[in-house]
């Protein structure tokens, strides 16, 4: 399955849904800073990998997927919504391995190099590990590779 951009999905999101995610993101960043100041960097650092906006995002995905399924006349819109969240959460679990790689790069390189070099390198590491894991996962779930995957994409009950 090929990765692509679908800008129509951004149009489905309401302004207040963006606002909710902005609020959650801002709050957890501010709270992480306060916790680090109060309890020290060892406790504060844990919260840099807190699933801050995951519940809000998952709720939006479920809502959008249910709406889409109803629009398409599918009988079990609830199931479509839940399945979409399950796929998203599985992706986030994979992404957390890449998040581990990001943290590892920062932990190892930060004392030796400039932060303005370390953060882009760590981000590149996160993207690389994410892509690699997703590619491996996609291959494992679609025996026969990309060709089969593209042919069956529309027939499978995948939520995207």
């Amino acid at each position, binding site marked *: 399955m090929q990765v692509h951009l679908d800008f129509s999905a951004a149009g489905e999101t309401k302004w207040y849904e963006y606002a909710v995610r902005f609020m959650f*993101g801002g709050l957890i960043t501010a709270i992480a800073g306060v916790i680090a100041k109060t309890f020290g960097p060892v406790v504060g650092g844990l*919260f840099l990998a807190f699933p801050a906006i995951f519940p809000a995002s998952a709720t939006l995905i479920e809502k959008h997927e249910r709406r889409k399924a109803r629009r398409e006349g599918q009988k079990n819109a609830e199931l479509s919504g839940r399945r979409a969240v399950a796929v998203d959460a599985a992706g986030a679990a994979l992404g957390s391995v890449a998040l581990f790689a990001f943290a*590892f790069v920062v932990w190892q390189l930060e004392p030796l190099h400039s932060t303005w070099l370390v953060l882009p390198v760590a981000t590149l590491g996160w993207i690389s590990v994410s892509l690699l894991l997703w590619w491996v996962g996609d291959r494992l779930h679609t025996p026969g590779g990309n060709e089969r995957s593209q042919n069956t994409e529309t027939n499978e009950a995948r939520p995207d």
Partner: protein
Amino acid sequence: MHEILIRFLIGGVVVSVFAVIGDILKPKSFAGLFGAAPSVALATLGLTIVSEGAAYVALEARSMLAGAIAFLLYGSCVSWLMTRYKAGAAVVTLCAVPIWFGVSFALYFAWLR
């Protein structure tokens, strides 16, 4: 107070940018990776290095390893629960948050402290 406000604004912007990227990326299994993007870390570490220095940031990053392991278990549990039970996403994702706390602080007491 001023620093908290700056953190709030930068955190909100960075997290929102990653969320929008996750929205427009397809398939969903790939977009899900952005649910665990280092958005809070990117917003926080840049500010922290200025105020606290490299050693402090390295310590935070080491703890972030434990947070990421907790996130792996949290995401896996949410995925499993969503496929097996009829509860909605809001209920499942929020009820599973104690898993993140439990694993994070277990690793903190066992390894980081």
